[in-house]
């Protein structure tokens, strides 16, 4: 799957889970940029992403991410 495709799908997931009007994620986007993205919704996002892409992250992978770009890097390795 191409990086662009992943971002398009992630935008849909973020909009749905965080109940946003619209979402334009970039590599640098982090929880500091989206008010609704808190510690609890972070976990809901991971569950939704794992389900949608049929992948499984390890705890260490999740704890290492600093932004969306690093998460997408992890996803690219699994897809």
């Amino acid at each position, binding site marked *: 799957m191409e990086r662009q495709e992943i971002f398009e799908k992630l935008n849909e997931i973020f909009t749905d889970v965080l109940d946003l009007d619209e979402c334009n994620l970039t590599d640098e986007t982090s929880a500091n940029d989206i008010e609704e993205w*808190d*510690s609890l919704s972070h*976990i809901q996002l*991971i569950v939704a992403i794992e389900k949608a892409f049929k992948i499984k992250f390890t705890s*260490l992978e999740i704890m290492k991410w600093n932004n969306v770009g690093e998460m997408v890097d992890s996803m690219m390795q699994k897809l």
Partner: protein
Amino acid sequence: MVVNSVRFLFFFIVVFTIYYLPFTKKCPRRQNVWLLLASYFFYGIVDWKMVVILLVATAVFYALGLWLRAVMLKGRTKQASHLTTLGVALGICLLLYFKYLNFFGESITELLSAVGLKATWTTLNIIVPVGVSFFTFKLISYLIEIHREHIEPCRDMVEFATYIAFFPTLLSGPIDRPNTFIPQLRKPHSLDYAQAVDGCRQILWGMFTKICIADHLALVTDYVWADYSHQAGSTLLIWTLLYTMQIYTDFDGYSNMAIGVGKILGFNITRNFNHPLLARNIAEFWRNWHISLTSWITDYVFMPLNIAFRNMANWGVMLAVTINIVLIGLWHGANWTFGLFGLYHAMLYVPLVLSGAFGKNKKLRSNDHGLPKLKDFSKMVLNYVLVSLGFIVFYASSVADAFRFFSGIVSISLFSMPSLPIKKATMLFMLIVLILEWATRKKEHPLQLSADGLFRHTIVRYTLYAGISLMLFFFAGEVETFIYFKF
């Protein structure tokens, strides 16, 4: 040697003078060596044997950090995880041995006796090193952050040892993270006048809340508790509300002093309190109370647990919250009272998790008169009362004691006049703190005065500082130790 003592003042004048000498201030390593010597001297005054424990623990974790990074660079992921687990286990063992060994020994013996098995436990004479709960958490976070690739290990042993033993925060925190603190040790510190003045103001405010409020409330709360079975329910209820103020002004006072001393030496130390009395629910309270501990446990316990339980929806969150908050309780000491304290707080989280309000950080806004909105204010009051009830079990020496005290509140004498030997001045000071809690909620401490308005005049500012200093002399009694030194 407490921060608000004359001995500390003399110690700090010597540290400060040599730290900023032209020979020292140009070179971070020389400043670090000096800070390290001062920190070990400071710790040695408490008990020189503890210095050995601190030194050995520091050397072990320094070596582990370098070893872990070397293993990670070779791509040995599993070995790196094992090494991190080993380091975390070592840190936990250090805590278990010094703080919890007797507690577990006695509890298991009691349990076995209760089911009819014969067992004995000889209480070991273990002296708990002051600050062990604080520096152990620094050691553990250092290894975890290397493993998560958020930091590089320290190559310089002096730098790492200074981070662990930094004297302003060694005895009672705040628990600084390596990510934010170690980089500060790598740059030279010249005296930053604005930062140092702010540090002095913060120390002054910390001394005010500690000496003028907490120390006097300590006399009142100890007096009432000593004879609580003969006190009216209303008196016990007021005790409950006052003890929250005492513990807040004591620990926030200590934290302000520690942070202020750090600022004079050119360091930004992590905040420990962010106006917790304005919290509208228990989640907000824990986000703003003893922040350096709660954020530590959130990052290294709650998040991994929440991730592990992620497919269990609300049950997973509740389970992670409960483990998290019970651990925060037990961190304070080896007593079932602290476990129950944690469980009580976990229970207060249930409605938040079920309603989905947990994790949401709604901004606090004032009404047209600059006051809190009535809805917010009533939530703050309710939360204060709930938190205060939890502190009964925190103060009590046993669970049974806490329940007896609580049943004393729920009695017909609840409607009688309370009787506490509290000074009017202490009540006035508490009122000032409560008003400032709201009025200066966007500031780190209330003496960060606005450059506009009345305080733009130097004379007004200095009159205020002089007034507070005068209060300190007027109200200073025997220097009380800080509540959190025993943790």
